[in-house]
């Protein structure tokens, strides 16, 4: 131990710690300055950026000894007298923070820049902040915030009047804590006496194992309190997102199906857990032949992963409409192509983290999550407890994108805390997060599209195989969702779309923004381009001809009541023509760097597929006049803590700033379902609206006035006004319920869906979001590199609940779509860190022009539909179209990395 003295945000600070300890860990764990976040401990993400003697550094790479005598500045030091400084204010007002986990690092890098350069250019911002990764925002609003520093008016933020909250560009209601470092995420807080848990994971893709005597290691490490094994699981040692599929063990039972699977869990004090190497554990392994990739797992003699899944097949999905052979016979242009995509990592900057404590005969888990109620029910089964005896308290979620739906730390800390009757915490490191958590399904797709001479689609045949890895996770959802969406957002009279999901000894593939739809979109929209070229119709107009319209039936026979794709394409038509002409002009004199503009379209069913996925919301009113929304809709950065409040405010008729929020705690909020499948705006938005209207109705009945009356919410009283009549309700005279309220409104909404028949016919979703995007790219012909120059994105969201949040979703979706298109491929065992796995950085994401189209959905709240997933799905097809326009190469394999594109350019020219 060494004494280290340094100035922390101007205050002399002394610590007595191991000199090699990372500054980031000293700040967070020893000093409680948790505003500094840790995303990777390897200098790859920049989340832990602080200033050391004024210079931005990754505090995960600084030995605390080097801070001796230095000045360390963290996000906690930015605020001035408790108020946001100009930079923080700009981040807040310009929507630069979504989930907020990268925000402290961004702010510290930006403050370093601004101290050296008070008037930075856009490139200066890129260079200065290029070392910090953001997975939510697509960086654009961060750039806006910095370039518009001090100009708060240009952010166009408004504080909406009563009744005008929906659709208002209101600042995030939880925005301030995201820019001042006080927001609490999964790894930020736990009781001081909490033990730490670390899961020891399989180093093999497939192996049997046996556990030896633990006594020697326990003797060697007195701080090692316990080693949990499968035998310590009190209930069912299995989890999985479907009620009838619990195939993934919390701790493996003598057999592992992928590298990264949890085998035993060490529990002890922090130093001990950090000191023990995995290979010190007495585990004897017998490696077996693993089956991986496409082909080997479904070969006749392939080793089986699960006894009840013959042939390693999980399931098949089908959508059948009309007669495809007749359709192809009627077609003048027919194209068939095969496509491939790989695993993709969610790349949330906040690793999985949480802690649990036993409270009597209940277990309480504080955790970063997208789905508090699903966590509750899964943990209950694993613990052998009633669901009511499990309480999930969500922290702020530092990014999810589908990856924080499945169980990770939750069951582990619950089992340990229960057994040891002590609080237990766990934070995954980046390597284990990447090795253990789910990924996007790799796909192999073969598809055939046919159209008539006048460009009208006639027939579509689609076969898609999806590698779901070692466990089911969301594999069934992907195999269902893909054939439904396979055609793309077009009217097609004849369709046969089939999908298959199979197991392999690889990282489980689960939910990831789009559930298979982004993979399918690459296929359908490439074929659209081919047919457009053949029929001599402009690619955008070809899509406009075929865009499914209101009143038309989808491939599942569902008649649409809101379908704004044609309007999206119309919004883009001007940019499209200009950009295409500019690209062709450029190419007339440039052979080595060629420009191209492509278009991609998508659709996405909002909510879970053909099953009930209701949301229940409450708004309570206390005798003091305090109005609170109890929302189970978890904010994972997309902004539901704000948009649900906007919906509640207008449903009830109250000012947004008079409304309070309790979010996610399963003891206080009802089940709003998962923050996934682009369902919260549509499903929970409805439930909130109904809860507001219910409470308003109760008040109006109390006052005996009509629906036209207005309500003024005062301290301890309500004043209800209708025309000249004014009635005051003294809330203290009303009986108080056990939860301390005098009135409570409830809203419940389940999207109107129907099951699919054996041909996949039915109504799988209540509504669909639509989008078209165009991408202008520059290809370096000699190197095969692609620079996306600009993107325009038009999205039909039915009704925007908050335009800033919608834009944020579009920007972030475009960034992830660009990553999918050009650089992101998770190769199990080889890219388990954030320097080998490449996600877009500042400078990779171009200017993004957004068009918000509002074709209202009759069953949506004020017409609203989802935006989370639609934002991503159209980007890769648009970029690939641009690459084709620039080079003549048809990209069929994502990601289109420089080596692949260069090879394709060479073979085309050969």
């Amino acid at each position, binding site marked *: 131990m060494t004494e280290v003295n340094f100035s922390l945000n101007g205050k002399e600070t002394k610590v007595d710690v*191991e000199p090699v300890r990372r500054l980031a860990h000293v700040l967070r764990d020893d000093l409680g300055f948790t505003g500094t976040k840790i995303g990777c401990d390897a200098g790859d993400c920049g989340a832990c950026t602080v200033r050391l003697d004024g210079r931005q550094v990754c505090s995960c790479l600084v030995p605390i*000894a080097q801070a001796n005598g230095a000045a360390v500045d963290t996000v906690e030091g930015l605020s001035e007298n408790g108020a946001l400084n100009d930079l923080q204010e700009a981040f807040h007002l310009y929507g630069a923070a979504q989930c907020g986990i990268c925000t402290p690092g961004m702010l510290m*890098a930006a403050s370093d820049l601004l101290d050296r350069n008070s008037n930075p250019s856009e490139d200066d911002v890129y260079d200065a902040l*290029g070392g910090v990764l953001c997975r939510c925002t697509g960086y654009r609003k961060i750039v806006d915030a910095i370039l518009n520093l001090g100009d708060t008016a240009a952010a166009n933020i408004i504080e909406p009047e009563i009744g005008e909250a929906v659709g208002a560009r209101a600042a995030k209601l939880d925005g301030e804590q995201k820019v001042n470092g006080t927001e609490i995420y999964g790894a930020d807080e736990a009781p001081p006496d909490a033990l730490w848990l670390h899961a020891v994971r399989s180093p093999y893709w497939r192996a049997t194992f046996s556990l030896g005597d633990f006594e020697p290691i326990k003797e060697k490490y007195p701080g090692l309190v316990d080693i949990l094994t499968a035998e310590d699981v009190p209930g069912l040692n299995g989890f999985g997102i479907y009620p009838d599929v619990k195939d993934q063990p919390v701790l493996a039972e003598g057999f592992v199906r992928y590298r990264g699977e949890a085998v035993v869990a060490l529990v002890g004090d922090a130093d001990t857990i950090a000191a023990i190497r995995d290979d010190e554990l007495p585990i004897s392994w017998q490696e077996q032949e693993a089956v991986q990739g496409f082909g080997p797992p479904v070969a006749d003699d392939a080793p089986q992963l699960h006894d009840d899944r013959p042939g390693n097949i999980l399931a098949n999905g089908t959508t059948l409409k009309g007669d495809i052979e007749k359709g192809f016979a009627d077609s003048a242009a027919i194209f068939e192509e095969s496509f491939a995509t790989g695993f993709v990592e969610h790349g949330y900057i906040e690793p999985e983290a949480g802690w649990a404590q036993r409270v009597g005969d209940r277990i309480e888990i504080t955790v970063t999550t997208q789905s508090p109620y699903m966590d509750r029910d899964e943990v209950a089964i694993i613990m052998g407890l009633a669901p009511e005896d499990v309480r999930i308290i969500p922290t702020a979620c530092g990014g999810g994108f589908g990856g924080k739906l499945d169980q990770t730390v939750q069951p582990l800390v619950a089992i340990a805390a229960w057994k040891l009757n002590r609080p237990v915490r766990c934070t995954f490191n980046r390597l284990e997060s990447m090795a253990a958590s789910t990924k996007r399904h790799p796909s192999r797709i073969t598809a055939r599209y046919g159209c008539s001479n006048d460009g009208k689609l006639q027939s579509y045949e689609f076969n898609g195989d999806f590698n779901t890895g070692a466990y089911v996770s969301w594999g069934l959802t992907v195999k269902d969702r893909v054939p439904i969406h396979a055609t793309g957002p077009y009217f097609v009279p004849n369709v046969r779309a089939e999908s298959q999901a199979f197991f392999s000894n690889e990282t489980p593939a689960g939910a990831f923004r789009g559930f298979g739809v982004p993979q399918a979109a690459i296929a359908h929209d490439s074929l659209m381009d081919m047919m457009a070229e053949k029929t001599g119709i402009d690619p955008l107009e070809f899509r406009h001809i075929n865009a499914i319209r209101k009143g038309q039936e989808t491939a599942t026979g569902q008649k649409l009541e809101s379908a704004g794709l044609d309007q999206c394409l119309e919004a883009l038509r001007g940019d499209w023509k200009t950009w295409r002409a500019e690209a062709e002009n450029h190419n007339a004199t440039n052979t080595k760097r060629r420009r191209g503009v492509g278009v991609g379209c998508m659709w996405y069913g909002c909510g879970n597929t053909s099953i009930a996925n209701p949301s229940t919301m409450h708004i309570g009113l206390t005798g003091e006049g305090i109005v609170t929304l109890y929302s189970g809709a978890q904010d994972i950065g997309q902004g539901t803590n704000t948009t649900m409040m906007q919906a509640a405010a207008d449903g009830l008729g109250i000012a947004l700033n008079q409304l309070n929020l309790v979010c996610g705690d399963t003891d206080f909020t009802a089940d709003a379902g998962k923050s996934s499948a682009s369902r919260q705006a549509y499903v929970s938005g409805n439930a909130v609206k109904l809860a507001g209207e219910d409470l308003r109705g109760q008040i109006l009945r109390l006052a005996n006035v009509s629906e036209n009356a207005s309500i003024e919410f005062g301290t301890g009283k309500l004043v209800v006004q209708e025309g000249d009549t004014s009635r005051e309700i003294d809330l203290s005279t009303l009986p108080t319920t056990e939860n301390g309220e005098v009135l409570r409104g409830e809203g419940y909404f389940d999207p109107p869906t129907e099951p699919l028949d054996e041909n996949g016919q039915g109504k799988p979703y209540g509504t669909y979001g639509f989008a078209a995007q165009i991408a202008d790219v520059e290809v370096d012909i000699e*190197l095969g590199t692609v620079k996306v120059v600009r993107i325009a994105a038009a999205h039909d969201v039915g009704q925007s609940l908050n335009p800033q949040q919608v834009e944020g979703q579009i920007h972030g979706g475009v960034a992830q779509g660009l990553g999918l298109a050009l650089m992101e491929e998770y190769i199990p065992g080889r890219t388990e860190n954030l320097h*080998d796995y490449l996600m877009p950085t500042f400078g990779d994401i171009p200017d993004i022009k957004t068009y918000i189209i509002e074709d209202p959905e009759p069953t949506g709240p004020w017409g609203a539909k989802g935006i989370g997933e639609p934002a991503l799905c159209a980007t890769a097809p648009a970029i690939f179209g641009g690459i084709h326009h620039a080079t003549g190469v048809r990209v069929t394999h994502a990601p289109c990395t*420089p080596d692949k594109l260069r090879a394709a350019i060479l073979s085309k020219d050969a």
Partner: protein
Amino acid sequence: MTLYLQPKSVDEAVQALSENNLFVLAGGTDYYPARVGKPLDDNILDITGITGLRGISERDDHFHIGALTRWTDIIETALPNYFNGLKLAAREVGGVQIQNAGTIAGNICNASPAADGIPPLLSLNTDIVLASTRGEHSMPLAKFIMGNRKTRCASDEIVTGFRIPKPDHPATSTFLKLGARKYLVISIVMVAAVVEIDNGNVGAIRIAVGSCSATAKRLHMLERALVGQPIAAGIGDLVSESHLNQLAPIDDVRGSAEYRRDAALTLVRRAVEELVADK
């Protein structure tokens, strides 16, 4: 009990190294990433407290870069055009956070085939200076780096700096890096090139390619072919595939060997074109 020593002088440092088996740590930007989720239980010699090892100075016949010079120092120090390539490379080392902490000696001693600092230093004919209780000595950088993460740094030695001879003629340099994203990217191929201009002709030219072999390589055959050529656009056309024969690229997640060879040819051509542009 692990050691964590913080010497104030080179003498103290080499004395400690002669007595203990120590891991030499400077900016920490390679040390910590290799230990994610692992114990930090190495015996460490933290040399960042040694005075006099940081900064760039001009001496009689050469420039000296101290071992602890940060990449940011290189970017911010006013230097002749001869160092343009090194400055461009400095901007490509990680993000600004890494440039602020990482040292030039650390980058060299880590000896990654993809180390951004190595090709420009090779193109500058750099000698590396090492010290131990046995005394100080220097050797060409190309000799010092033996292979993938292998150097001739003895266990009792530290690097104290780099000696860069002054060019014989007016000189300029460049650096090109190819990666699959803009920032924080490990290169697929990189090229550093220096030209000395003698009466409108190539007086001397030095070209080094990184990420295409276990260690970055100078292209001596090509350099010989270009000496004496007029400084004029089109010089890149003189570069042929055979000039890159000594490269031995591998397939990895960032690109195939075939692609690396192809891209290296393009980048070398572009680099030499850049050197003669506007001259």
